[in-house]
């Protein structure tokens, strides 16, 4: 059984590598002064953090000084007065114009976005050097989308096999389940139940568990040298935060909305409340949006910053190219990698924890008020 799985894994890896394409970009003569290297490293780190249309594994410069990138292409799906589908290998890293269904597309190598161009592939720029060409709606399977798919499949395999092992072994986990079960239980017992409450936590569990493992796994993949930066991408964190926002507000109880639109409760006459509410209600309503917004910015900024810091520290080695900067850059980036390993878990935990907290606000009921009444009677 174990061997079969291993064989299947090797098969997948070989198929992926079989699909590798080798591209050689033109022979750019690059200067070798530290200044040139600095701009090169800066561009490289920036590129590394951007979403790309192909999956680059590594790149090298051969004896003739030609730059080669090794990786595999991914499908490009564009919508511009009709569907345009082609392999990203056709883009040749922005060197060639792709003709599809009577339209021409070219990759801008600064932003790594595809724009509509004329047959020659000319870009028009405004005064701030922004491309002014029409951008088609880009639904390509980019590197990030590809990694989301990989992680989704991985999560599905791990946890459906854990679920199966329960059925087979009388509720005793086996294999990787032994590692993941305590985490699942931790999310239930120390994140969901204390924040949401014993009665209502169950309906939020699928989301909390999925979002935790999804973010954690993608964060960990981001630490590999493949330049994967999914959780450091604002579109991804926005999507996650919007789901938290919708879940919070769609499952909100009467007490939740009352807390927003009538936060002072019965204890105060309306005449006194109205002037206060002119200030309070906008703040509370703003809070509904600020909470998930803080979620998306926190995750994005933390992951993006981690990638930039790590990339820069490794880049130091190439910029200085001497005996001090080499070990120093290595030591620092190693230390930061260890911290990033912790941050990967921590950010997943924080996102899950805060989502649970917001769900807890949304599902609050008036129990605590009853308790207070009881206390008053006792006094």
């Amino acid at each position: 059984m174990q061997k079969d799985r291993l064989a299947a894994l090797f098969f997948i890896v070989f198929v992926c590598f079989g699909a590798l394409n080798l591209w050689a970009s033109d022979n750019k003569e690059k200067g070798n002064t530290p200044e040139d290297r600095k701009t090169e490293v800066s561009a490289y780190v920036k590129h590394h953090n951007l979403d790309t249309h192909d999956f680059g594994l590594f790149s090298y410069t051969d004896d003739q000084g030609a730059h080669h990138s090794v990786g595999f292409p991914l499908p490009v799906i564009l919508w511009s007065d009709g569907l345009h589908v082609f392999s990203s290998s056709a883009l040749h890293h922005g060197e060639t114009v792709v003709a599809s269904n009577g339209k021409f597309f070219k990759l801008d190598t600064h932003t790594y976005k595809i724009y509509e161009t004329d047959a020659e592939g000319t870009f028009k720029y405004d005064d701030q050097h922004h491309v002014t060409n029409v951008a088609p709606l880009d639904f390509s399977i980019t590197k990030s989308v590809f990694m989301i798919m990989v992680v989704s499949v991985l999560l599905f395999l791990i946890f459906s096999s854990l679920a199966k092992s329960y059925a087979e072994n009388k509720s005793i986990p086996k294999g990787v389940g032994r590692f993941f079960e305590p985490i699942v239980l931790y999310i239930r017992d120390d994140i969901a139940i204390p924040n949401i409450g014993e009665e209502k936590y169950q309906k939020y569990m699928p989301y909390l568990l999925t979002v935790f493992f999804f973010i954690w796994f993608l964060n960990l993949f981001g630490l590999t040298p493949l330049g994967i930066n999914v959780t450091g991408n604002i579109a991804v964190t926005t999507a996650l935060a919007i789901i938290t926002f919708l879940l919070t507000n769609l499952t909100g109880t009467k007490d939740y909305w009352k807390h927003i639109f009538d936060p002072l409760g019965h204890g105060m006459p309306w005449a006194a409340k109205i002037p206060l509410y002119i200030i309070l209600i906008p703040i509370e309503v703003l809070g509904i949006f600020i909470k998930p917004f803080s979620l998306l910015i926190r995750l994005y900024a933390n992951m993006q910053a981690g990638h930039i810091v790590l990339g820069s520290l490794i880049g130091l080695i190439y910029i200085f190219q001497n005996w001090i900067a080499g070990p120093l850059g290595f030591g620092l980036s190693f230390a930061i990698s260890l911290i990033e390993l912790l941050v990967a878990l921590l950010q997943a935990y924080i996102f899950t924890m805060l989502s649970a907290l917001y769900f807890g606000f949304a599902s609050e009921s008036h129990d605590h008020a009853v308790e207070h009444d009881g206390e008053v009677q006792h006094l």
Partner: protein
Amino acid sequence: MEKLLGEFSVGLFFWQTLLFIALVLLLKKFAWKPILNAVNEREQGIKDALDSAQKAKEEMANLQADNEKLLKEARAERDAMLKEARDIKNKMISDAKDEAKVEADKMVAQAQAAIESEKKAAIADLKNQVATLSLNIAEKVVKQNLATDDKQQELVKSLLEES
């Protein structure tokens, strides 16, 4: 902010939302529900097992207490029976003693009475014999012509020897 908006990719947002929601739904059906159910079941099972163990322990204690009680009762009963038996024995002994004493006293009294009457009879008999003897002697003395002293003396002597 402008840079952030520039970085925002609608396509990635679309795929992320679609794939993530699909992932949540799939995992909910094939992973989280079975896992949480199994874990809950297991926890319930452990709780039940602990409860039943506690119950068994209590039952055991109850049983032991019952046994103790029964034993105590049996012991008390045995003690009571022994005491009764001892009392009966003592009573029987004392009764027998009393009876024997009464009987003995009675026998002694009877014996004494018999001895007394025998004694009386013997004395009466002796008196009669003495009287008869005396009369016989007196008769013989009288018969022998008590002429001389010698003769008298001889007579008395012979009479005495005779008697």
